[in-house]
């Protein structure tokens, strides 16, 4: 081992807020005690509102990797359940659909489910999606293996508010091993393309072997190492919370406006409103938002040229900011942290880890971005700055391929290890009104009358089941009661 290559000993995480807390909590739980972990908790950036109040369905498992269980999360924060996002007034055709989380739909006679909808000219997929129907009716129950089989096809995530959510991660016992430093970052001391130490506003200095940039869109460490932002669109957001006695639906709602869009998330005892808009139409957005916003933020959507430079890598918004129209921001954050954990370098030579981290981060960005970008295809949209800017760049060739293959015959093109799966794409296509011109001709083999009856029965069964499910409010109330009693 040369003088320049020695065992990696100290990891320094820089940045308060969602990315910093989740990264620190997972590392604290997952890494051996021989590794020192230092967390510089700078003030959380307001840009955390761009994580969009909705986690990915991977949150349950991800949170366990930080030793945060669902009961802990629900009891100690204002987090609630989410079947997905309900889109309203999308495009000039004012489309409405629930972008829900769902396991694969049934395969009939070796053919994907949606081909039968095309064959029979059935316009909507939604009546066949238990999580979508449950979302619209405001009901919730855990999908369990041993429960009703129809419900077991559903998946769920959480509606959350960053500050409260973070508190569950900071409270884990593993955080005791972390050296926590509160303060503001003043400067980054470099030697070549490596960070030597971080200097804080109060004069303290923190050295380390590996630096993790969780400072949000500004990427205050990575940007010093020359990772430039390839940004395209500037967006602003306003955020407010309003008290609510009754818990709203297990679903986030997004309504399109000329200036951009507004989302409402139902939290415990509150609802959280987010208004996202193009800066050119600020007055319209402010008027629509109503009450004076508690938080405002402005970001440039886009991606850094490098996710990891020298001995510094970024997590979450420090790498890229994607619009929180879907659960992409949280999904990518989960994946960043999981990727980091599996690639924590062994020594200070981190060539291999850097290359692999960068490769996966790039792919994740492209694959998540095309999903978001697909929300702006195939329909007509208002001729206003927000909608023009969203469509300014032509779709990536991977998206063009996906759209063309689906449009012609309902074929789902997939690439390696995409963050969004085939169901996400199918639900999106149908929700936006994309209907394949043709279908798999093998679908013709199934006898028509019988299959129509089966489809009608499936819709009816979902209806019946949803009718028996408790409201999100009642379910949560009972669950929290139960948890309170079983803990004490």
């Amino acid at each position, binding site marked *: 081992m040369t003088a320049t290559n020695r065992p990696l000993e100290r990891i320094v995480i820089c940045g308060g807020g969602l990315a910093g807390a989740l990264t620190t909590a997972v590392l604290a739980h*997952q890494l051996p005690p*021989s590794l020192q972990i230092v967390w510089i908790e700078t003030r959380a950036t307001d840009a955390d509102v761009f994580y969009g109040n909705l986690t990915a369905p991977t949150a349950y498992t991800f949170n366990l990797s930080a030793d945060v269980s669902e009961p802990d999360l629900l009891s100690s924060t204002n987090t609630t359940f989410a079947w997905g996002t309900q889109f309203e007034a999308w495009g000039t055709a004012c489309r409405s659909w629930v972008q829900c989380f769902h396991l694969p739909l049934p395969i009939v006679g070796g053919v994907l489910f949606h081909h039968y909808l095309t064959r029979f000219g059935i316009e909507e997929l939604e009546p066949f999606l238990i999580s979508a129907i449950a979302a619209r009716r405001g009901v919730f129950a855990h999908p369990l293996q041993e429960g009703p089989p129809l419900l077991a096809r559903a998946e769920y995530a959480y509606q959350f508010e960053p500050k409260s959510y973070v508190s569950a991660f900071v409270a884990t016992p593993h955080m005791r091993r972390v050296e926590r430093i509160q303060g503001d970052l003043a400067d980054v001391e470099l030697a070549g393309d490596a960070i030597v130490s971080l200097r804080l506003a109060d004069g303290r200095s923190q050295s380390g072997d590996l630096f993790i940039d969780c400072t949000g869109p500004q990427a205050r460490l990575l940007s010093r190492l020359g990772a430039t932002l390839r940004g395209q669109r500037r967006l602003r957001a306003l955020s407010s919370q309003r008290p609510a006695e009754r818990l709203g639906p297990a679903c986030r709602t997004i309504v399109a406006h000329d200036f951009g869009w507004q989302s409402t998330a139902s939290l415990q005892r509150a609802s959280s409103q987010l208004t996202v808009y193009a800066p050119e139409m600020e007055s319209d957005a402010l008027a629509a938002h109503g009450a004076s916003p508690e938080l405002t933020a402005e970001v440039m959507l886009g991606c850094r040229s490098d996710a990891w430079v020298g001995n510094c890598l970024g997590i979450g918004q420090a790498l890229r900011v994607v619009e929180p129209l879907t659960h992409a921001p949280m999904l990518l954050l989960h994946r960043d942290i999981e990727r980091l954990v*599996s690639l924590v370098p062994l020594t200070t030579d981190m060539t*291999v880890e850097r290359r692999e981290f960068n490769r996966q981060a790039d792919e994740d960005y492209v694959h998540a971005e095309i999903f978001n970008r697909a929300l702006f295809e195939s329909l007509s949209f208002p001729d206003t700055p927000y909608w023009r800017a969203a469509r300014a760049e032509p779709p990536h060739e991977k998206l063009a391929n996906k759209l063309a293959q689906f449009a012609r015959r309902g074929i789902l093109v*997939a*690439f*390696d*290890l995409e963050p969004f799966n085939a169901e996400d794409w199918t639900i999106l296509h149908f929700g936006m009104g994309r209907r394949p011109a043709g279908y798999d001709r*093998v679908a013709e083999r199934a006898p028509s009358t019988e299959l129509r009856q089966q489809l009608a029965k499936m819709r009816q069964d979902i209806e019946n089941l949803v009718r028996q499910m408790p409201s999100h409010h009642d379910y949560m109330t009972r669950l929290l009661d139960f948890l309170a009693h079983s803990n004490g």
Partner: protein
Amino acid sequence: MSGSNQIEKVCILGGGTAGWMTAAALSHKFKGLPLSIELIESEEIGTVGVGEATLPHIRAFNNTLNISEPTLMKETEATFKLGIEFCDWGRPGDRYIHPFGDFGPNVNGVPFYHFWLRLRARGDRSRLDEYSFPIMMAEAGRFRYPDPDFTKVTSTFRFAYQFDATRYARFLRKFSEANGVVRTEGKVVETIQHPETGFVQAVKLDRGDVVSADLFVDCSGFRGLLIEQALKTGYEDWTHWLPCDRAVAIPCETRGPLTPFTRATARSCGWQWRIPLQHRVGNGHVYCSAFMSQDEATEILLANLEGPPLAAPNHLRFTTGRRRMAWNKNVVAIGLSAGFLEPLESTSIYLIQEGITELIQLFPTKEFHPGDIEEYNRRMQLYFERVRDFLVLHYIANQREGELWRHFQNLTPPESLQEKLEAWLTRGYVIKYEFGAFLPPSWIAVLLGQNLFPRGYDRRADVPPEDLVVRKAAEVREEVRAAVASTPDQRTFIEQIGAASGSAPLVAQSAGTSPR
């Protein structure tokens, strides 16, 4: 969808494994729909009978066709296959099994082998194999079906078959003909193409009849009668990475045990396969003609048979690589016409299968949309390249003497493989993909089996206290050992499920060897 645009007629050219697998799958999938399938083959043209050993994917193929396993096994003299044993690949004297299954359970989301690497770094000398149920079962010559209960160690594997590919083709021929496939005896003497588009309209046979179709599937083997001779599609030559270009094959009498695995033994200028069937053993020697003559190669093969040969040696030539486009105009190449990769990891039938599956998924209409063709070719290219990288790994990870092996020691691998190797050697990290035959455990088996030990392992493996890891490891070993002990031997199991062919073992004729 307008009916007039649908493909009404498919012509499959060639009746080897690829041809009849294609015919069986298409005729089953489109049964009851207005689509007729004609397969042209000639008794005079022999088939190569590629790949007598398969990968577990074959079972999905057979299941889709509702083929009964015992029936198939009886008809094809099949045995079970739990993996491949590689002898002398790292250093002469080394051996390892690449199993169809994982090594030990994941612990807190971390693959077990990282914990094994940790123990090893502290002096533990247990083999990783002892944590693999399929390896230990294979070494003991035993077999059972995987347990559906995922919590049990007996669920941690998949399996494939070793069978007579010629009989498999014959079996599928019966199946296809029962499904309405028309078989036409004949040799193609002329291809008729559209004067402007170049699409193949028909083929003329030696006896004068003309067969026209909307879609042609070229299963004509190495020569690629339509895809290459007619359409001049071009071939991407991979000889610089995989220079072996000849093989000599010969069946022999069974002398050794009925092993539930295939064996690949490294030789001075290539490698030799051993595939045990119920009634005989298939053998072959793949070699590089730049370093070895045909006579020498044949001599080595004959000197390394476990029993008397049952036929004359069969000589094959090939160029490793892939057709630039497996699908060109209205011709889809499946099998050797689409590309060739040596059968070191039993991928020939697997690649045929992927070719068929993707064709069914993207089954064209008469307009032959360029987007479909592009998508098919993109997918097939990925499958071929990923198999290629895995094969190259076996060669470059060698510590052997000899010109061929030194050539590989100095070879610059494809970039995709180079990155994989570096990630492994640095920290035992396996770069994953979603589309392709070989999952991380396959890579780990070969890498470790050929002495590429990583310098480090996942840091998470250092979290649990050492005594806990030691105890857990011992538990897994014991669980595997006990499971193997209660597993029947392969021949008993084959008999139990009614898959024994009952045919007497083949015996060489006393007056030397004669072609069958």
